């Protein structure tokens, strides 16, 4: 019974992870309207410093410029990639690895469970 509960818990964790993964993936894509360069220059004057953050936490740093009569943040520095991106990728890979390991563990535990009866039978 103890093993069965462990198995149930593992499966539940796997199920939850499987559901949450696409949910968080979708969230990462939501609201991608590309308005940030304009928002970054709201109430700012031409040539004032500005910056905004992209979907991957990369930073765009520049100055406000009048583009088509609207103030827009124009980057004039190389895009600064976020170190969090690397961390996030590592985290994601770790999660996937943990999931795979959990699956393997479940399968490994399943193997002795099934032949257990057989062993008992053979011992008879």
């Amino acid at each position, binding site marked *: 019974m103890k093993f069965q509960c462990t198995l149930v818990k593992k499966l539940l964790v796997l199920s939850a992870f499987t559901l949450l993964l696409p949910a968080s993936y979708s969230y990462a894509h*939501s609201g991608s309207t590309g308005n940030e360069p304009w928002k970054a220059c709201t109430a700012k004057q031409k040539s004032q410093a500005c910056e905004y953050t992209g979907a991957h936490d990369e930073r765009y740093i520049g100055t406000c410029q009048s583009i088509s*009569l609207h103030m*827009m943040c124009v980057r004039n520095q190389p895009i600064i990639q976020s170190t969090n991106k690397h961390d*996030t990728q590592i985290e994601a890979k770790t999660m996937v690895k943990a999931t795979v390991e959990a699956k393997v563990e479940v399968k490994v535990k399943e193997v002795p469970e099934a032949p257990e009866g057989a062993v008992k039978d053979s011992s008879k």
Partner: protein
Amino acid sequence: MRISNYRSLVGVVAFSLFALGGCVSESSSDDTTDSTTESSTTDSSTDTDTDTSTDTTTDSSTDTTTDTSSDIVLGALDPTMFVDGAFTSNEIVDCTLSDGTETQCYEIVTTGTPAEQTPGPFCPRSTTDNDPADVGIWFDESGTDGIVDLTGNYIMDLAVTYNDSNWKLYDENTLEVFVTETLESCDGAAQPNVEDEFKQHCVECSMDYLADLDVTATYLIPVTPQVADTTGSVSQVGVALNGTELSAPAPVDDILGNYTIAAFDDCGGHINLHQGYHYHAAAGGCAEVGTQDDGHAALLGYALDGYGIYGMRDENGDEATGLDECRGEEDDVRGYHYHAASPGENLFIGCFHGKTVASDTDAGGPPAGGPPNQ
């Protein structure tokens, strides 16, 4: 997160409590302890050589009218850098700059059709069209350099992408993507105020629609760039080496607000009935044909003030540092020049470093549409 995900999550939690509850009672009865606490989520976001030469003769097009002889100064427009067929004529004419300066300009006439490039593809026809080679691109921060392939899957996911369940650019039964496939629908959807019948469409126009329309553009660009006292505001940017207009930012908010996607091809361009084919982004390296011997980013076109616009990255993939607020810099080979922004930034340069032709004699096609609403 979509509502369906919440429902699923609630279901899982409920089932988990039920199942674990059973385990707890069993554990108690078995007098064992097996605490498993694994609760975590992950955000899986991924992630012209314009050398100085004299007596330049332009022969970009077979029917070119050429009398463009001049002394080209460092950083100035070099007509020989344009590809064959980029323009139908290029003459040097008198012109007046925005501060009243009388000077000479190249008067370059283009056709609205890119030379040595076939526009498209743009929209997927079905939600099953997921080969990047068969579809165009669209702005999305989640993609590399701010662009993504406009695949059928992407079309299906628009409601999630924009967190708006009203998005429906495809038929759920047939999986057909709603694409503007007639001149009427192209015209109706490719404008700020889209009628209801043309909303919920992936917008693309065919070059065939331009056959009876005048989409020629005339650019007046100073033969010798002159630094302006104050930098100038940008709308229309300039002209690419293949004769394609480098346009103002695409009005993304207007486009999305009408539940349309104004698809670009992989080169960052698309077609409308006023400008013909034009670029909103320097994508795919399509326009960057003016390779440089020193590994510098390639020349892709010229701004209306006469300075060259180069790609964003050099041959090593590195960006220039120390750009000014116009996204320009100066070196001994190219003089003053610009570097285009990344495709997803929806712009090429930040401002005009030099003087442009006065507005009352302004050249070029119609404005490239307004910026996003704020």
